[in-house]
């Protein structure tokens, strides 16, 4: 650019604005941050607070109208036995799903990071991600077919001569049922299937950050592979497991579609919230129920932190 053109450029309004913003970085920062902060503050946190407020209202038993007065009456209702059973069932399911996801995801993630070639690793990434691109509902319903009495699992068990095993599993009280698609086992299997990618990806990310030299150093200092795994790899990858478990645990706590489509008619937090805010019209109780997963997650993360899950971060 010639000196004259450069001089001319200084005069136009855009250049002047640019110079103003350059000289006032705080103004620039405010302009850039205001829209996302508004979104976060008003729409996200605001609605959360509205939800929280709702849970302190209660429903008038006679009129069925929401009474907009602060009260712990709804929480008292939440703490009755049938509702506590729903909470316990949901938390137990979420814990079991999380544990199973971690058991399945860790070896897969470890293989992807340590052994797979670049090509195979890309393929495995696709294998983990592609199911996430297809409709969740379609996948849940296809599992209904897979798990049905006339479905492929029964067929396979028959041909492998393992029908007795399937029947033994279905005969387990509470967890079993007439077929996998009408049992808690079925609900569990589909939950694990749906959420396992959310466990694999954070563990892969955590393992990627563990330098190979740490494993070599451990072996060099006399640790056999199992000791290296226990003392070095697992502690360093654990924040990834915790990150993944936040997903699998909270997603299971809040889901209402899978327990509706697959399993027994036992209610979970998600299905209860769905029913209370819909047919029953008890929005305060629904709100109180949604507060439960938040408290459970807060307690869970506190315990995880106490156990040192984030020490390696």
């Amino acid at each position, binding site marked *: 650019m010639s000196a004259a053109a450069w001089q001319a450029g200084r005069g136009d309004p855009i250049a002047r604005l640019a110079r103003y913003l350059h000289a006032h970085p705080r103004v620039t920062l405010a302009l850039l941050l205001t829209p996302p902060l508004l979104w976060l503050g008003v729409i996200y946190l605001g609605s959360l607070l509205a939800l929280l407020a709702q849970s302190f209202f209660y429903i008038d038993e006679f009129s069925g109208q929401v009474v907009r007065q602060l009260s712990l009456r709804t929480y008292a209702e939440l703490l009755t036995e049938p509702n506590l059973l729903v909470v316990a069932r949901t938390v137990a399911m979420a814990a079991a799903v999380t544990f199973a996801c971690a058991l399945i995801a860790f070896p897969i993630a470890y293989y992807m990071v340590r052994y797979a070639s670049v090509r195979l690793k890309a393929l495995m990434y696709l294998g983990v991600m592609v199911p996430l691109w297809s409709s969740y509902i379609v996948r849940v319903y296809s599992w209904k077919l897979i798990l049905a009495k006339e479905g492929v699992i029964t067929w396979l068990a028959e041909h492998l001569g393992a029908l007795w095993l399937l029947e033994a599993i279905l005969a387990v009280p509470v967890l079993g049922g007439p077929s996998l698609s009408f049992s808690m086992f079925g609900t569990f299997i589909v939950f694990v299937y749906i959420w396992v990618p959310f466990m694999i990806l954070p563990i892969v990310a955590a393992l990627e950050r563990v330098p190979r030299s740490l494993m070599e150093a451990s072996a*060099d200092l*006399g640790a056999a592979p199992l000791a290296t795994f226990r003392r070095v790899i697992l502690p360093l990858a654990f924040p990834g497991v915790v990150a993944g478990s936040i997903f699998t645990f909270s997603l299971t706590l809040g889901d209402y579609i899978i327990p509706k489509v697959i399993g027994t008619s036992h209610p979970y937090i998600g299905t209860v919230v769905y029913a209370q805010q819909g047919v029953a019209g008890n929005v305060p109780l629904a709100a109180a129920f949604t507060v439960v997963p938040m408290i459970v997650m807060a307690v869970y993360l506190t315990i995880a932190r106490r156990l040192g899950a984030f020490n390696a971060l």
Partner: protein
Amino acid sequence: MDSSEVAVRFDGVSRLFGEVRAVDRVSFSVRDGEFFAMLGPSGSGKTTCLRLVAGFEHPTEGRIFLSGKDVSDVPPYERNVNTVFQDYALFPHMSVQENVEYPLMIRKLPAAERRRRAGEMLELVRLPGFGARKPAQLSGGQRQRVALARALIGQPRVLLLDEPLGALDLKLREEMQVELKAIQRQLGITFIYVTHDQGEALSMSDRVAVFNHGRVEQLGTPAEIYDHPRTAFVAGFVGISNLLPAAVAERIGAGSRSFSIRPERIRLATPAEPVAEGGCSADGTIRSVLYYGAQTRYLVGLDAGGELTVVTQNSDAGGPRAAWSAGERVRLVWSRASERPIEEGVET
């Protein structure tokens, strides 16, 4: 050499990565208690050799012996060697104390003994009282010392050091050189030291193996390597070296073989200076002058073709002239005895 005195022996060892021969039919022995340097540019195979000793790699061909025992297929955790890694490889989730105790913890030694020995080791590397810190809270030099303490606590026969000072600044590097050497003498164990820094290799080691293209080009004491480089590569890689091709040598009357000569063996003189008996000379023009404080380095273009580097000491007893400047005509004078013939047919 008695086999009991040999700490490490390579017998025709090759390591192939696909088609690439990272280590190519290498044979050498490291004596017990020796400070042995493996020197070479990156990709020359020196680090792979170190990893072969540690057990992170296994030879494709040939055998490796530790104290006379064939360890070619023995995993690292069953070898009595320890490594100081280039990136230190300290466990980030453990304290300094836990890092240093790690080998003893793996061997299930009682906690009291672990603590005592870790304390001694931290004393040895001059980091007493640092046990409670995390590696992230240490400086580069301190991490280096922790890595050293951790590698030494198990009392290995051989300590492997992979460019251990590479990440430190110059001052610290010189301090650590002195300290490493002192620790090696104090403990009397074998050190195998990988570096691409010829200064480090020359100043610290008892013997140096110069690596190039996966092979050992020359193995000898630092003085042998520096004063009698056998190949053009060694002459060029270790120290500054002048290499005169056979054609130029012939034109200046220095015989018909190509040779190398160290820059400090050449004297700068005025073009009129007569050449003494047993001497040799070449006339040229100074192309550039680089001032280094204690020394000055001149690059001289020869009339006969080629260039020579000359290094002069900037002392008060510095000869007839204190300094020369670029563009001046000079006569370079040296003794024929300083010329080192280079083996022909060796690529640089």
